[in-house]
Structure formats: structure tokens, C-alpha cells
């Protein structure tokens, strides 16, 4: 198939960027979106030009490295799918496709489609864990957890930290990411001990990093490759208020 691509090129965080047109005439409907970009890069190399930089690794939808805004939508048109799991058969011969990086001031652009998402790591560092010593854990079955509790925690824990939620949000809020971690841990008995300090630290860090506030438009859930529910945001807010009220 033939494609007309408009791809964001930007040398570095402090240089201006622009959309550049590329033409690919030998795309194959079975290719993944990233393989299509590989093919564009091969053309660029053959012309002696520098390649389009983008992050990717497992290409199985689980590492969370990849992600770009495709025709205005993070991860593109397929529901519940990351960019690496999007295939060219979702497009038509002759289509024009616009590809841009995830945009948010808390995600500085490194180059082209590559952005710096280390703010997410710092949110976790601020307290997004259970303080337990590795070698000193109690027997696992001494902590009974109902199937429902476990699967509720799992649903939140499934977040791959790709950042699509931030990129889709008009406020560039990190509420879905942060709340997924908060509710994953607070829904388990072993995570309840630190529930108050954890949520306050994480929410504060989220603000420090420059993410915007959540105004609950639910765009994040719509683009999330793991289909993490916005109900976690509601629970995070509840946890935060609870902590602040000293309950």
C-alpha cells in the first residue's frame, strides 16, 4: 500500500520542530505501525539522512516504551492497543497519516517522537511502593486476599506507564497513571499501612512535575492501551481527601 506520512521532526528539546512529509509506497497491511516506521527509516538511511527517533522495545504491547500520537490520537485508532500492536491493515491505501510525539510540558521532547517520561519514575520514587524488606516477608498465604480484591488490584497494576493518558488529556494530567498505582496498592491488605502518606506524596510529586489537574473528561481511559478505568482516579481522590482529613 501507498502512504503519505507527516511526521514530527525536532532535533532537540530547545530547537523548533515541524511536520515533514514522507512517502512510502511499499507498506504491507500485515506490518505493525512500528515496522512501517522501520521501513521509512530504511529509506532515510539509504538517502544518507538521519532516522526518525522513536522509543520501542518489546513490540508486544507490554513494555510501555512506544507511543506516539497518530492522526490526533495517542496510539492511533485501535481501541485498547499500544502503537506496536497497531497494524497497517487499520489504514487504507493512499491514506495520509500524521505522527507526532506525546505532548506535555512534563514530558520534554528528546528528539522527533522520543520524549522524556522520567517524571513518571519520580512519582513512583516519591512513595509508590510498599515498604517491605526483601528477605523478611511473612509466609504468602498468611495474607489472604479475596479473588475480587486481587483482580481489582490487578486491573490497576496492569498499567504499563506509556504516558498516553497524559498525551490525550487537555490538561496533561497524570491522574490516571498515578491513581492506578495508588489503587493497586491500597486495595491490597499489605498496602493499606502506608495508604495516607503514599497518596499524599504521589499527588504532590505529580504537581511538582508540572502535570495539570484532572477535570474528568475521561479521554485518558479512551486511549489507554490497558483500558485502565477512570474509577481509579475517583478512588485516588477519595484516598487523598481521606488522608488530608486525617481519617
Amino acid at each position: 500500500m501507498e502512504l503519505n506520512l507527516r511526521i514530527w521532526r525536532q532535533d532537540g528539546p530547545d530547537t523548533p520542530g515541524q511536520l515533514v512529509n514522507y512517502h512510502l509506497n511499499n507498506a504491507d497491511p500485515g506490518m505493525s505501525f512500528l515496522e512501517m516506521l522501520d521501513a521509512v527509516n530504511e529509506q532515510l538511511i539509504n538517502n544518507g539522512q538521519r532516522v526518525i527517533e522513536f522509543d520501542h522495545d518489546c513490540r508486544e504491547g507490554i513494555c510501555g516504551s512506544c507511543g506516539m500520537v497518530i492522526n490526533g490520537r495517542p496510539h492511533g485508532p485501535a481501541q485498547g492497543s499500544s502503537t506496536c500492536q497497531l497494524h497497517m491493515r487499520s489504514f487504507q491505501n493512499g491514506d495520509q497519516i500524521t505522527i507526532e510525539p506525546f505532548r506535555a510540558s512534563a514530558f520534554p521532547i528528546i528528539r522527533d517522537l522520543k520524549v522524556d517520561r522520567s517524571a513518571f519514575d519520580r512519582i513512583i520514587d516519591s512513595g509508590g511502593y510498599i515498604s517491605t524488606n526483601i528477605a523478611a516477608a511473612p509466609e504468602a498465604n498468611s495474607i489472604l486476599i479475596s479473588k475480587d480484591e486481587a483482580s481489582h488490584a490487578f486491573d490497576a497494576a496492569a498499567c504499563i506507564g506509556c504516558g498516553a493518558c497524559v498525551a490525550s488529556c487537555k490538561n496533561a494530567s497524570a491522574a490516571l497513571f498515578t491513581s492506578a498505582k495508588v489503587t493497586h496498592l491500597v486495595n491490597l491488605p499489605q498496602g493499606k499501612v502506608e495508604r495516607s502518606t503514599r497518596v499524599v506524596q504521589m499527588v504532590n510529586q505529580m504537581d511538582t512535575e508540572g502535570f495539570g489537574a484532572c477535570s474528568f473528561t475521561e479521554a485518558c481511559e479512551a486511549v489507554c492501551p490497558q483500558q485502565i478505568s477512570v474509577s481509579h482516579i475517583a478512588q485516588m481522590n477519595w484516598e487523598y481527601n481521606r488522608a488530608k482529613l486525617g481519617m
Partner: protein
Amino acid sequence: MLDAKIPNGPIEKKWSEYQATCALVNAANRKKMTVIVIGSGLAGGGAAAALGELGYHVKLFCFHDSTRRAHSVAAQGGVNAAKNYQNDGDNVYRMFYDAIKGGDYRSREANVYRMAELSVRLIDTCVAQGVPFAREYGGSLGNRSFGGVQVERTFYAQGQTGQQLLMGTNSAIARQVKAGRIERFSRHEMLDLVVKNGRAIGVIVRDAITGEIERHAAHAIVLGTGGYAKIYYLSTMAMGCNATAAWKAHKRGAFLANPSFVQVHPTSLPALGKHQSKLTLMSESLRNDGRIWVPARSGDDRSPEKIPDSERDYYLERKYPAFGNLTPRDIAARAAKEQIDAGHGVGPMRNAVFLDFRDAIAQHGRETIQSRYGNLFGMYQKITGIDAYVTPMLIAPSPHFTMGGLWVDYELMTTLEGLYACGECNFADHGSNRLGANSLLQACVDGYFILPSTIGNFLSSRIKEPLSPTDGPEFDQAESKTREDIQKLLSIKGSQPVDYFHRTLGATLWDCCGISRSRESLNRGIEQIRELREQFWNDVNITGGAHEPNSELEKATRVMDFLELGELMCIDALHREESCGAHFREEYQTKEGESLRNDEGFGYVSAWQHRAEGEPILHKEPLSFEAVNVMTRNYK
């Protein structure tokens, strides 16, 4: 002589006695000591967290943009532990026995026993971290069964066990980052090891954003850099998986063990076009209900539903009536390749076999099959666009896991003093074939439990030693070598992109040193790889510069090492004149076409020493079995 430092005494006491007698570093001294950890997967990440918790100063490096993205994240099936929660007779000895037999008697007893022993505590640790494993209605942990065993000992978190375990490890890392004990360096790639008088003293790393080449010194260095099956280009591994850290350590003096032992998974998606960049694993569990077949007539290109039963060859059921479609991974993979090579392959590239659910759907109904494998059918459809409820799936074997790796002793130390290797990048626990769900286990116990004890035994005698200054001649030499390599790569400006060399190397290795190997194919492979390497250094084309983000350059520094490792893999496979586990040498098979192991001649670990000029030198670590009887595997 290789000394594996295996403690004396009965197998079930070795580890506890080792721990009771090894030297310790007291808490006040630990904080004065720096340990570099390369890799933030379950092995490296676990080690970093545990060492940080003990109070060491840890510098943790990974090439990913976050420690959360290491390849461990992709493991689906589960992690084994001898908890006997199902009361089905499991115990540490049985688990040890299954793994030794599964590895076809080419692993070290003491290590395997310790892995089984520590599995029990691992699950406790993960649960305490908040890993949401599957639960029974009563709130206790659930288990399932995996290939090669008769008990249910696999713990899992839906199909995302690796991801969930890694989030646990990452929590432990985050806690130590906050405590100031771990310094984290993401997007940093180790490109060389610095060695002084046989001892590892530091690393050379490249910052992937600025291109800056940095020097870091440490009292000890831990590699948890994963496996190298991506050398085949098409494999189930993540795109970034590579051998550079282990290979550079090898070139600086660490021995590499059993490099040709590579596990090929029988049920991945086949390559569907020439642009394919990786192969996706389809769970082996599909073989419980799917029947595998190919058209009996070679070149038959009718669509599958038009091929009547009488013209189908259910070759696994025919050749292995007792196990049928559930033969072990190595056998199923080899049988598929035989059919494909003989012209019976199906699909657009004639490189696959059918995995057919027609009979299972007729027998159990579509709903039952959907409830068992619905997510896998969904994933298959997402990738191929094909509805496997109607048309049989196309599956093919693909390289998946490397049993070979850096040689380590019982303490996980390589042949270089102060250099440790844990997880998939060492060779130790899986012999010539890995059992499913054992490698997450190995990575975790190496990192969380074993290394933090054994490294103390080494560091305790180095408390008074200051860090090596990073301006010494060894650092100068390693850094200029790295810079030279990069300059040279960028200056060639040839006609082929890096991927061309990687793909060609992969195809050669698959053909000559893949599922089955022969003297003839291996000799051919060695020759072809040498030629390709020469072509690479004359004709590779890398755009962009050294001091900027440059993914082509990153690929090139990895492929450059793969082009050397590939040859050693062939040399290793050539010298091993027997068939065992994943290593099937065509000249050594029974009349029925089964593996013919040679315990007298080859009951050892092959550990290769690098030489700047000429062939590498083979060292042998003889394997002796005291706790098990060595037997022949039989699946007929």
C-alpha cells in the same frame, strides 16, 4: 582449572552452610562500598534493590528509558515455586529433580537445588511487595501447571506475570532511590568493562541522549543484562535485547559457557512478511486443545478447510503417539522445522504449520474454547487479522531463551574477580533446556537472595581498598577503544543499514546453528559469519552522529558484538558431538531420530576463553550427579 566453589556436604544443606560460614561486611562498612549493577530486569533490578537495602551504594544502569521496561516485563506464563499449596506432593527435591531432568543433565546440581529451595521465599517476597497473583475464592494463592512437570507449582498474574513481578522489583528499586542508596542511570548503555590484573574495576557507558562516554568505578560489578536470543533477529525477545555487556566481559577475560544452547519455542507466530521485526509468542497452552498438522503433499496450497483429513499429516501424533501434540518444546519445534524444510510449510511464506481447533470446537463447543484461550485468539487476530475459530492458526518455532551465558561459580562470580552475572545472562541453572516458568524464578532468586550474600564474601576482604581512580590507564584504554569503535562505525558510510547485517546473521544462524545443527552446517555458518563480519566493517551505513540520540548507532554497537558471538556459538555447537536438550546434532541421533546424549564424552559445561588472535580456548567444568540418577528422556 575451573573452580565452581561448590560447598561440601549434602545437597540440601549446601546453601545454608555456605551462608552460615561466608564472610560478612558490617553495616557501617557497606555504605562505603560501591557496587555497579548493569540491568534493571528481575535479576539486576532485584540485586540492586537488595544491595541497596543492605546499605551498599549502588549505581544502577539500564539502556531503557525506565527501569520498569526491562525485557522481564514480557513474560506471560508464570513463575515456579515449590510451595505445595495444592497438596499434590510437591517439594523442593521434586522441583530440583524436574529441572535437572528438564535440562537434560547439563546443569550444575548445587545451583539447581538452591534455585528450588529459594523459590519458596520468593513468592512470600513478591506478595509482600503487592504483586497481585491469582487467588482462590478463599483468598489463598492459586497455581497452574506448566510443561515437563506433574504438579501445579506455577504462580501467575493473568497473562502478565513478568510485568507484575517487575513492578514489584521496581517498587523495591524506587524505595532505595528515595533512601538515597541507589543512583539510577536510565538510557545508559555499558559498552565495555574495565579490568585491572584480572579484576573488574569499572565500566564504560554511553549516555544515549548526549552520546557522552562515561567512566564509573566500583568495588564489584554485577551484570543482569539478560539473554542474547535476539542474535537470530527474528525471535520472541524484545528489540533491544543484546549481548554487548556479556560479550565485552568475555573479551576482557570472563569465560562464556555453553553459548550454543538456545531454546526454540514451538508456538510463536511465523514471520508474515520480509519487514517482520520480531515474532510474538503464543502460549504453549494452546497445544492442549489444538492439533498440529501440515498438508501431506508438499507444496499443497489449497486453503486448509479444502484439505480432507486423509491428506493431512498430524505429524506429532504420528511420531509421538504417547505425548502427541504435547511433546516437549525442543521436540515439537524440531518436528515443525522438519516439515517446513521438506516443503510442507504453510502460510504466505510457507514457513508455518497449522494449529487447528476444528476438532476441539466440534467436541467442546466454541464457548468452551473461547473461555480457555479467548485472549490468545484475540491477540492472534489483532496481529494477523485472521479468525482462528474459523481458520487454523499459523504457528512456527522461534528462538526464545538462551541457556548459555557467562560462566559463573556457585557464588555467581565470573572468571573475572569482582564481576558477577545473574539471571539469563549467566549459564547456570537450566542446562541444555529450560523448563517453562523457571527463568523468572532464576532471575529473581539470583538477584534478591543469592547475590546479596555471595558478594559480601568478596567485598569483606576489600573494605579498606579505595575505589579505583577512573583516570588510570585501564580506564583510558577501555574508553579510547569504545570511542574508536564508534568513530569507525560512523565513518564507513557504506551501502547497507545495520538491520541488513542483523537479519543476514540471524538467517545464517537459524539455518546453521538453529533447531538442529550438523558438522557441515556449522562449518558453513562459521565461514559465512566471518564473511558477513568483514562486509559489515566495510559496508555498513549509519547516519547521524556520535554526540546525539542515535538509534542506528546503538544498534550497530550491538550488532558488531553479535557478529562475533555468532561465530563462537557455532564453534561451541561444533565441538559438542552429542545431542542434548536444545542442542540437536544431526549426526548424533538414535535410529528413531531422537537425541543421542553422550554423558561420558560431554558431561561437562563448555567454558570458552577469548583470545585476541586465533581460536578461543575450551575449558571444561565436569558435571557430577550425586543426588539424581542420570537417565534418558523418552516421550514416545
